């Protein structure tokens, strides 16, 4: 379980996040929407242990996150705006390298399994620089799940995906949810991943404007909440 308490992040003289509180139950699937500059990516970076909050705290399974809890990174998988992949290496070389960074065992088997899940087995030995945007995004997803994380943080994962790849991602999200992973998906389009989500959060100007269960909300409710947050659907 992840508990976020009174989180505040100040960058320069601007409060990017203010008084953010929420709980992510183990196995929950939360979709976060909000306009540009709402603080979504900053929130994800804090949850990914990439940056520290100015005040407040994040507890993962009751342990307050700090510099000494770097080992928690093993439990977190991140798909960000960029792929974090080396263009000069092949798909298998990239994933094997990250496997070593995470201290994994049986790396070749894990790499093949992760690449199979995202449907890129045919491109295993091709240099990443030859990949299309969609293929790159799929390999980035494979990189994020390589170490079998309990928490998945996804920042606009649908960007650049064609319809087939979107369906692959939805299928993966479904299977991760069934496996009991906690999923935190950031998007600017509320429809993305919503059919699978069980919590819906709207972030506006660094504050949580709305955070409730998806159940019982209709399409018009979502549209209204997103528009109230300054975001079109």
């Amino acid at each position: 379980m992840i508990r976020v308490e009174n989180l505040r992040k100040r960058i320069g003289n601007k409060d990017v996040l203010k008084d953010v509180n929420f709980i992510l139950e183990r196995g929950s699937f939360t979709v976060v929407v909000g306009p540009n500059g709402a603080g979504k990516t900053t929130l994800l970076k804090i949850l990914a242990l990439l940056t520290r909050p100015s005040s407040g705290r994040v507890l993962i399974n009751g342990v307050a996150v700090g510099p000494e809890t770097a080992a928690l990174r093993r439990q977190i998988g991140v798909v960000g705006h960029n792929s974090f992949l080396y263009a000069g290496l092949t798909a298998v070389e990239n994933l094997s390298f990250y496997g070593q960074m995470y201290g994994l065992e049986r790396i070749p088997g894990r790499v093949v399994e992760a690449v199979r899940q995202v449907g890129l087995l045919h491109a295993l030995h091709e240099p990443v620089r030859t990949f299309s945007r969609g293929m790159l995004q799929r390999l980035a997803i494979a990189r994020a799940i390589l170490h079998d994380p309990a928490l998945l943080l996804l920042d606009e994962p649908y960007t650049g995906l064609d319809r087939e790849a979107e369906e692959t991602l939805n299928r993966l999200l479904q299977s991760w949810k069934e496996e009991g992973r906690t999923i935190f998906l950031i998007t600017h389009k509320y429809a993305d991943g919503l059919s699978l989500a069980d919590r819906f959060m709207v972030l506006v100007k660094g504050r949580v404007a709305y955070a409730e269960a998806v159940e019982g909300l209709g399409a018009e409710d979502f549209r209204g909440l997103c528009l109230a947050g300054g975001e079109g659907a």
Partner: protein
Amino acid sequence: MRTRQYWQQIWALARKDLLLEFRTREAISVMLMYSLVIIVVFAFAFKPSRKTTLAIFPGLLWLGSFFAGFLGLVRTFQGEKENDCLLGLLLAPVGRTAIYFGKVLANFILMVLVELLVLPLFFVFFNYHLRGPVLHLLAAVLLGIFGFVAVETFLLALLGNLRAGEALLPLLLFPLVVPVVIAAVQLTAGILAGEPAGLSDWWKLLVAYDIIFLAVPLIFFD
């Protein structure tokens, strides 16, 4: 177990950098070309008599190595910026010092490889016959290169995110690397002259400097 994993990560990082370098040959080609230019220009500028060679050879050898290293290694962290790969590393349970030492190891191996190719050419073009012990010369070369690589990689890591980083690098690098240059040149001159005794102070200076620049990043990056 944790120590073993730390070293494995350092080696994996260095191997990845070397693999990328051998595919593009960006740094190696720059370093080799610069070294060759130095050799050819000075071989024709001076008559390679025994007396002239003795006087200028150690300085030229290190001039070529250090400037080639400066130009070749300057892009050390560029590969990590593409696709935000450095962020990907920071997401993993990898110590920042492991990332730094991985870079140092890759740069060291690269510079040593270039030096192994270039060093014999210096002897051939300057018609120089080594009189001193080869192992001493190799030790001086390895320690000198390590000191230079450690200082440059440290500065590249510190200045990487600054807009004026590239302009600041030579301003900071050259004063910081002066002790390595002086010690390496003095050691090489003594060894080549066949007088390896009496060099202990220069050995101590070079080793101490190398150790300092192994230790300083531990404080900065962790």
